[in-house]
């Protein structure tokens, strides 16, 4: 359940920025979570609901954009996207030399404040 730590961090970042910029509260927080990041979206949503109580984010809705694992194959020079949370070889040519471009994200993207 490291999602509790992640939820706590993202709420802190959002509240800090909200106060610094002179706003009163947060309505929406949007995060980008890579499928290979090790974070389970449902657990994060659950932890967020528990952690936001009593803060200026208590009415906030958390929107999770799941980012698939994608990369570029050095053999066939094609980009690929997979359903799994890992890549062992290029799904197009089977080559084992590739670069991963997305899937490890753990970012707080934007928020809506009032």
């Amino acid at each position: 359940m490291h999602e509790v730590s992640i939820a706590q961090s993202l709420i802190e970042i959002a509240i800090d920025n909200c106060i610094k910029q002179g706003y009163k509260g947060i309505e929406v927080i949007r995060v980008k979570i890579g499928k290979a990041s090790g974070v389970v979206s449902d657990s994060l949503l659950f932890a967020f609901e528990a952690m936001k109580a009593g803060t200026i984010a208590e009415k906030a809705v958390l929107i999770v954009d799941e980012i698939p694992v994608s990369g570029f194959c050095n053999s066939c020079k094609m980009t690929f996207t997979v359903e799994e949370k890992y890549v062992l070889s290029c799904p197009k040519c089977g080559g084992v030399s590739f670069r991963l471009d997305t899937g490890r994200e753990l970012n707080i993207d934007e928020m809506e404040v009032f």
Partner: protein
Amino acid sequence: MKVKLATNILEANDRIAAENRKIFKDAGVFVINVMSGPGAGKTSLLERTIQELTGKIRIAVIEGDIAGSDDALRIEKLNTPVVQINTGGGCHLDANMIREVMDDFPLKDLDLLIIENVGNLVCPAEFNLGEDMKVMLLSIAEGHDKPLKYPLMFQESSALVLNKIDLLPYTDVDIEKMRKDSLSLNPKLKIFEVSCKTGKGISEWTDWLKSLVK
């Protein structure tokens, strides 16, 4: 009103980890973060490692557990400085917990600091502590499907210690598949096969570890 943030959620942890790393580097101590599921044999590996390297390099240990100090007591018996961190339910150590206990050691008088993380094959992989190297332990009895089920820890680690190889005759585990999948996830992974019970393979592991410690 929309506010763009585009910030890594673990930025605060990574910042403290970077500070820890600098403190350790300045003190000249090499730090490893040992991770595994519960019961893979982390504390047994630490005991074997300390016994093998005593008198050659100066070692201290940070023990991370949800509760209790059983592991720290085992290390203390080997006359090795040890600090116990109890996370009180938390499933991993984070950089700030390390920061809070690091002053308990005379860092300048150490060569190697071993951090034993909370037993968990998922969460610890996500949190940098300021270590020089992550090492993961997997006991062969856990099964050869583990690399592909828990890829992140295999990808984050520099070394994989396969423990309990004395149990090989009693299991159906395919150790070659375990090695192959681990290396596919992380081609740079250094793999050791050991038995903390019999001591087999331990010196290969400790020789390598010692070569990394300045």
